[in-house]
């Protein structure tokens, strides 16, 4: 019961602030609501007892990417009307994409449980009183089952970082 209350609380915040993010005219206000949506998603992760995902969501998306977003928004300081003109053209495309996506999710819900292998998979709930050793579990699966993709992704990210440093160096 408490789990459900917490879930709907965070889910409501996430959906509500996502809607506000799209509708706000002021870019910085949109960014604030995006941060709220991401934090609420992190809350849902925590409610699902995935504390490692919770903190990764906060460190990466809120603490890293959103700081850069806000930084760029402030740096560029676009004229508001210019921005609206730029994005207003895609109304119909957006509507169609949203409808298709909504239809897909609806079909998933509808077919869920009707046929085996269809719809949302049902996962076993974690023990209620104690959080599983999240970081260890994630590390185990990353370094055993998914070692190669993990290494490739890490090298890619490292290359990107070194590349950024090198590009910043060669400005003459």
């Amino acid at each position, binding site marked *: 019961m408490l789990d459900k209350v917490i879930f709907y609380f965070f889910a409501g915040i996430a959906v509500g602030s996502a809607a506000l993010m799209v509708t706000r005219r002021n870019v910085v206000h949109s960014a604030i609501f995006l941060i709220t949506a991401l934090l609420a998603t992190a809350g849902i992760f925590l409610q699902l007892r995935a504390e490692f995902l*919770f903190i990764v969501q906060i*460190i990466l998306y809120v*603490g890293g990417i959103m700081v*850069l977003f*806000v930084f760029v928004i402030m740096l560029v300081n676009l004229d508001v009307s210019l921005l609206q003109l730029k994005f207003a053209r895609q109304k119909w495309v957006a509507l169609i994409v949203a409808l298709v996506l909504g239809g897909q999710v609806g079909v998933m819900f509808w077919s869920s449980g009707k046929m085996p292998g269809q719809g949302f998979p049902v996962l076993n709930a974690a023990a209620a009183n104690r959080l599983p050793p999240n970081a260890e579990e994630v590390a185990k699966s990353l370094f055993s089952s998914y070692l190669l993709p993990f290494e490739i992704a890490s090298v890619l990210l490292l290359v990107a970082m070194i590349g950024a440093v090198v590009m910043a160096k060669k*400005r*003459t």
Partner: protein
Amino acid sequence: MQAVIQGTIDFLKLYWVPLLCGVVIVAVLPLIVGYIVLVERKLMADMQARLGPMRVGPHGLLQPIADAVKLLIKEDIIPENADKLVFWLAPVLSVGAGLLSIAGLAFGPAFQIAQDINIGILFVVGISSLGIFGIVLGGWASNSNYSLMGALRSSAQLVSYETAAGMALVSGLLFAGTLNIKSIVEAQQEQGIWFGMLAPVAFFIYVVASIAETNRAPFDLPEAESELVAGYMTEFSGFRWSLYFLAEYTNMIVVASVATTLFLGGWLRPFARVGWMNFLDFFPPLLMLAIGGYCVWRAPKQPARVQQLFMLAVAGLCFVVALVLAAPVIVPLARPSLAGAVKPFYAGIHGGFWFLFKVSAYIYLFMWLRFTVPRYRFDQLMRLGWHFLIPLSIINVLVVGVAMIVGAYFHLQGWAMLLVTTPAAIIALIAALLILAIEQKGGTAQEGSAAPDFYAG
């Protein structure tokens, strides 16, 4: 009936004890911060051959309270064209993130609000990094160029130095093998050595990066008063300004606690596993006795009677604390049968003392650096972060990892690990010198070109 009572106790333990700890921290922290500021002003005065605050209370001991009252009753100004809601929200965000991250810290084996969270240190670092939004949004909402410039600088600085700090933490965590704060300290107890000795280069990187992350001198460019008035805080006044101030010092306490936990052995006594060093247990009560004795000695020299009495009261407080600290050490000596019963008290009280002692030493180091090192230029700061600290931290992680594998191969443990980690640190230092040499060669041709011009104050 029994079950009901047991259930009530469990409920209280689960929810009310952490809540109480939280309330205590939130209530006491502003006071502690006030006295940190007083120590900082006294230290600054000492270094500049002045006396510092002397008027309010003996040696300015009541100055923080006077300052707090002044800040609370000051007029609260919101600029005409400010974004009111964000302006209101920003300082709260800043201080909230700082206070929330304290929940994950362990000030002693028993004193931790969020007990035993698996992701411990990530929680502390991650939540405290959210405080940057308070700074950035506050700078933007004030609708002032100085504020915006300070906010931009701050976010750029934080993003750059967080990478280096994170990598430094990784090098330390390699030795701990866990993220849980309690287990990190227990790992240091088990191995009988602080991770700061095993990974000195990582510790150095963390010290530098944590100064930059808390926006302190010599990296206090977001609030450089000679260039930006007060940076992101320019338009804030009264209570809101004091919230930013509180957030800055809270963040200092948080980074100091993280460094203490991971690199300086947390709540452990120095040489906790060495038997003949047990006389160090007498250090905490003797220190408090000495402070109390000094207060008694100075009391008659105070000009006013109230000040003399106040000084004696401070001395009495010190003596009480000394008694509390001495009891767990003296009692087992006098009555060996009570040794077992006293043990948890010893762990709690002395653990708390050593933790706070190390945190204070770390903050003292911060202050010392602030008054001795001149402020960096912004492009110098960026170059130091991206061209020196980040490469060094990556190399250090590699080298420390190799050292750990070699150490495990030869079954080295505890102090013997120094045999492999010291060469590792030397290799990292040589790499650092190489990086510096390359930097010198390339740096002269393109002085000041690392950052775009808009940073240049």
